[in-house]
């Protein structure tokens, strides 16, 4: 709803504009709050049980961009740089899509593994790294890995999400609860506000897409559906609940628009950010948070019926 209001306001060329500092603040808040929540839940889990799942998730994060890359190269006819960059964006994840997916499940009373923010943190980086490697494949140019690693692992989103996870994990529920007034009670409202802002931003990316052509439009809808299918299957293989499968599907389907663009701009400067961001933010993000997530939950239900445990 708020997202649509943002889209509508922007398309109608309204003057509405959230201050930059508010955008920053909301995004910092969401990352920290999701991290803290995940950390608290992680503290309740035996780590040994989570570890294999974590590895599975990372492997998935590496595999997805390798899948996307040839499609972008062959079918889309994109340059190596552009294909690699877009693959990296879709290999990484969107925190807001995650938040919307979990809110959707909570509203429907469908349980999911509450430590899943850990997976979000784990999925942010591998996709980006693989994307960069794909760009440098067959190229003699060296990659300045130390600088890049710095850019990727110490970017805002990884630090806040990871930091939140760590703090939540170390402090446990008792330590974080007094801050619940800020970090948990306001979460839904802040998410709504952020979606309003994302609507404004996403709508302004649509113009970019006109130039990008039909291929990216199709890519931005079909790839998330395929990736979600993979995510749901991986989730099943890891023994996640139905809700967990749906969330992992949504994560796989989502494309990064915070960490990836920042890293790619530096690592693959030849890639045109208009294409990757236009697709991730102008098509895939809106698709996921409206039609995608219910569909991915459906996927999980189907798989469960197909393969009862």
């Amino acid at each position, binding site marked *: 709803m708020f997202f649509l209001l943002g889209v509508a306001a922007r398309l109608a060329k309204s003057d509405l504009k959230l201050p930059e500092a508010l*955008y*920053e603040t909301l995004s910092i808040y969401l990352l920290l709050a999701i991290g803290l929540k995940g950390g608290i839940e992680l503290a309740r889990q035996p780590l040994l049980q989570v570890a294999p799942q974590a590895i599975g998730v990372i492997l998935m994060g590496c595999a997805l961009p390798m899948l996307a890359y040839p499609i972008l190269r062959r079918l889309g006819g994109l340059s190596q740089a552009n294909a690699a960059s877009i693959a990296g964006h879709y290999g990484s994840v969107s925190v807001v899509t995650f938040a919307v997916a979990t809110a959707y499940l909570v509203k429907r009373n469908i349980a999911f593994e509450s430590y899943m923010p850990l997976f979000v943190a784990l999925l942010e980086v591998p996709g980006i790294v693989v994307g960069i490697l794909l760009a440098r494949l067959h190229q003699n140019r060296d990659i300045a890995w130390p600088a890049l690693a710095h850019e990727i692992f110490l970017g805002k989103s990884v630090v806040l999400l990871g930091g939140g996870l760590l703090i939540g994990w170390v402090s446990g529920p008792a330590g974080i609860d007094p801050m619940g007034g800020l970090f948990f009670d306001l979460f839904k409202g802040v998410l709504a506000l952020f979606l309003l802002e994302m609507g404004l931003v996403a709508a302004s990316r649509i113009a970019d897409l006109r130039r990008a052509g039909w291929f990216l439009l199709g890519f931005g809808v079909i790839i998330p559906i395929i990736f979600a299918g993979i995510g749901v299957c991986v989730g099943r293989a890891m023994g996640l609940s139905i809700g967990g499968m749906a969330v992992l599907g949504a994560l796989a389907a989502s494309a990064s*628009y915070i960490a990836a663009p*920042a890293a790619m701009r530096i690592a693959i400067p030849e890639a045109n950010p208009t294409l990757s961001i236009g697709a991730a933010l102008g098509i895939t993000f809106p698709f996921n948070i409206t039609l995608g997530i219910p569909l991915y939950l459906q996927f999980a239900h189907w798989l469960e019926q197909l393969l009862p445990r």
Partner: protein
Amino acid sequence: MQTFEKKLLVVICESALEKLLVRDIKRLGAHGYTVMDVRGGGAHSTREADWEGNRSIRMEIICTIDAADAIAEHVLNKYCANFSVSMFLADVAVLRPEKF
């Protein structure tokens, strides 16, 4: 009051370049720089600064003519192909020539 001739180099570009430029200009002979956040439009597109991928900065460097030339050329060769960058040079006068 005695003044000394220097060059002012202004680089308007994507904020992603800020860190890189700060590093580069020091190497190329600038003693300082001033940065501000801006928005704008040009050949590439309108950069409204409404979102992190869409921010621009304006960096101002007061330096010797040689340093200005070196920096301008470096930026032109290294970044202008792939990034939104505008640059201009102007003659300015300063009071403390050793500072710039």
